[in-house]
């Protein structure tokens, strides 16, 4: 395979300015992640110490095999919700290695509001279990939650993808033969009690762990019965009397050692047959991505330069290089795995849409996972393009994206707008994993355009009633819309709402995709089959 020959000049003024800008964005990301992971009010830390509990990060470190990578997901979930008071949505999820096996880790963070489940906590847990189902990954739950945050119960209790989905997903995993271990390190009350109960294996820590449908105060209120935590749902009762829990542990570390021993026995599924050779690092330094991504998101850049800093040996076999050039398609290897890449080099035209749909089917047929690198303002509009059938050509691309059986991975590198988001395997199209870069933006259209449309509608309404607005009054309508729109299309908002699986420092993308690919191949890949393509 041919190496991409880069045209980047690292001494160029724009390169240097971009480099500075993007390094600042990356360090801001790292700082925000550090705060979400580690910074807690001292009283919360103190409470954990008093309860003889480990901090969630220390629990996970003890659980994982030393020196192995942990791909944490949605670290900044909830960062723009609940006044920023629920870092990580009080949950830690990710893919890690336990006793040599790839697993999903799901841990309540009791240092945030006692590990209470907020609406976004529930969304994050459901997403982690969806990942487990789609990729057949065993799950280790580290349970320590005060229960659902009751004032917001309407936003996490009853709907299809709300809290019930956690237990439904657990049951489906069990049905699929994908094992789960729950370690009860705090109280698992009400719904939370079903997490250990629905896990194939569970371990409970003597003294701090407890499982009950209603805690002592609720029992007292309901029936007048006075009962201690230990009697009602402690380790000894559940492991010797009720059979709700399997193993009693004398400490959190002991419980983790037991969980590791259980996971060690899990059978590692055979990886789906995908072409793999010895990996090789990219020939171009991935850090040069900082200089390549323009500081102004509206400036176009060549995605081949990005691909060259991500794939093995910077080698890229470009498919149809002379046709539909606004969508780059081609084969490369990522950590040794063959992948098919679709990357935007401009707006989607008729030919680029057809090329994309064709390439997806090609990859599906030869069992090659797909990587989408999004920088897309949308499909081309206008009379000429409609006459050529841009809508039906876009529909073909969407049909192919939705129907592909091979695993898909999506990275929002820059812009992701309108139907372009759909055609490039946005969240709704079930990519196995989806990540964003710090400066990226997702929305139905660009902020300026949206604010323009909304202001225009308002002006016309007023014009009908004979009113006219001054420049200042127009700005007063437009600016708040623009502000709101910008906020809600930022990567930080998207990740706060769990529209993706996390924001990546661009240089980490290669490793994140490598781990995701390896995880995805635990599930068998179905044969290619599609719906009707409108020809």
């Amino acid at each position, binding site marked *: 395979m041919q190496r991409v020959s880069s045209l980047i000049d690292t001494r160029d003024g724009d390169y240097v300015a971009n480099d500075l800008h993007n390094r600042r964005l990356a360090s801001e990301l790292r700082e925000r992640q550090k705060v979400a992971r580690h910074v807690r009010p001292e009283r919360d830390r103190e409470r954990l110490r008093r309860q003889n509990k480990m901090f969630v990060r220390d629990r996970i470190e003890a659980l*994982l095999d*030393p020196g*192995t990578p942990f791909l944490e997901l949605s670290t900044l979930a909830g960062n723009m919700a609940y006044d920023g008071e629920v870092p990580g949505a009080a949950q830690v999820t990710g893919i890690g290695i336990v006793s040599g096996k790839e697993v999903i880790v799901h841990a309540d963070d009791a240092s945030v509001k006692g590990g209470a489940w907020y609406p976004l906590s529930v969304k994050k847990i459901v997403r982690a279990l969806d990942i487990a189902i789609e990729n057949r990954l065993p799950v280790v739950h580290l349970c320590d939650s005060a229960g659902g945050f009751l004032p917001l119960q309407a936003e996490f209790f009853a709907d299809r993808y709300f809290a019930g989905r956690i237990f439904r997903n657990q049951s489906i995993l069990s049905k699929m033969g994908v094992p789960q271990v729950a370690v009860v390190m705090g109280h698992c009350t009400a719904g939370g009690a079903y997490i250990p109960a629905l896990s194939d294996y569970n371990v409970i820590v*003597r003294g701090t762990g407890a499982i009950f449908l209603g805690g002592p105060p609720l029992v007292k209120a309901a029936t007048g019965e006075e009962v201690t935590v230990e009697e009602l749902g402690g380790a000894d009762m559940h492991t010797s009397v009720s059979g709700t829990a399997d193993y009693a*542990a004398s*400490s959190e*570390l*002991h419980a983790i*050692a037991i969980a590791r*021993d259980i996971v060690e026995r899990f059978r590692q599924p055979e990886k789906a047959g995908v072409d793999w050779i010895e990996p090789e690092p990219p020939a171009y330094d991935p850090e040069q991505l900082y200089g390549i991504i323009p500081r102004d998101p509206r400036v176009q850049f060549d995605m081949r330069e990005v691909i060259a800093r991500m794939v093995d040996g910077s080698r890229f076999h470009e498919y149809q290089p002379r046709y539909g050039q606004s969508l780059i398609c081609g084969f490369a290897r990522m950590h040794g795995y063959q992948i098919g890449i679709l990357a935007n080099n401009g707006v989607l035209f008729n030919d680029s849409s057809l090329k994309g749909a064709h390439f997806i089917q090609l990859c599906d047929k030869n069992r090659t996972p797909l990587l989408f690198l999004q920088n897309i303002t949308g499909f081309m509009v206008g009379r000429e393009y409609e006459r050529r059938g841009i809508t039906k050509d876009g529909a073909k691309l969407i049909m192919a994206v939705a129907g592909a059986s091979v695993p898909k991975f999506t990275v929002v590198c820059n812009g992701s707008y309108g139907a372009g988001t759909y055609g490039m395997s946005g969240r709704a199209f079930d990519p196995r994993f989806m990540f964003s870069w710090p400066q990226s933006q997702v929305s139905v259209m660009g902020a300026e355009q949206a604010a323009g449309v909304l202001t225009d509608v308002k002006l016309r309404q007023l014009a009908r009633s004979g009113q006219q607005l001054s420049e200042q009054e127009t700005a007063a309508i437009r600016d708040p819309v623009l502000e709101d729109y910008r906020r809600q299309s930022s990567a930080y908002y998207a990740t706060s709402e769990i529209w993706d699986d996390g924001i990546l420092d661009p240089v980490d993308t290669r490793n994140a995709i490598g781990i995701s690919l390896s995880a995805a191949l635990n599930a068998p890949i179905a044969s290619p089959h599609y719906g009707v393509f409108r020809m």
Partner: protein
Amino acid sequence: MHHTFDIGGKPHAIWLSRSPEGYRLALAEGGSAAVSLAQTRGGEGRLIVDGSSEPIAYVVEGDTVHIHLRGRSYAVRYVDPLVALAVEADAAGHHVARAPMPGVVVSVKAVVGERVVAGTVVAVIESMKLETAIRAAQDGIVEKIHVRAGESFDRDAALVTLCMEGI
């Protein structure tokens, strides 16, 4: 969670992981080295650490490996976290033999201050018409006997406390 090995009474936390060259040994406190064992014949070989090679002789005996290296002998014992951490719940360095079911003490076999090895019968109890021997789970010194012959007890009652320090 690292693996723990005991060498001369001192615990060492380490982790062995695969690497492109073979294996890497990492120490919990930091630092790592490429390691391999070139086996020349049973029980003897060359230990290669970061490229430098030393002759080594070893005998595996259960969880302990006896090593002869550079004119010195070492006993390297694997400390199973399932056992080591379970004990931690009792006072550090102590292990309490507990009653598996309610019953009556038939006889106490252990004497305070006595050295026992894992498996030594420390007491015999009777419960549900069955006599059960309570054995030391670990090597240790009998520190306290909580019951006397003829006494009845509940499930999980402490029977004998062993001290693991100084053995």
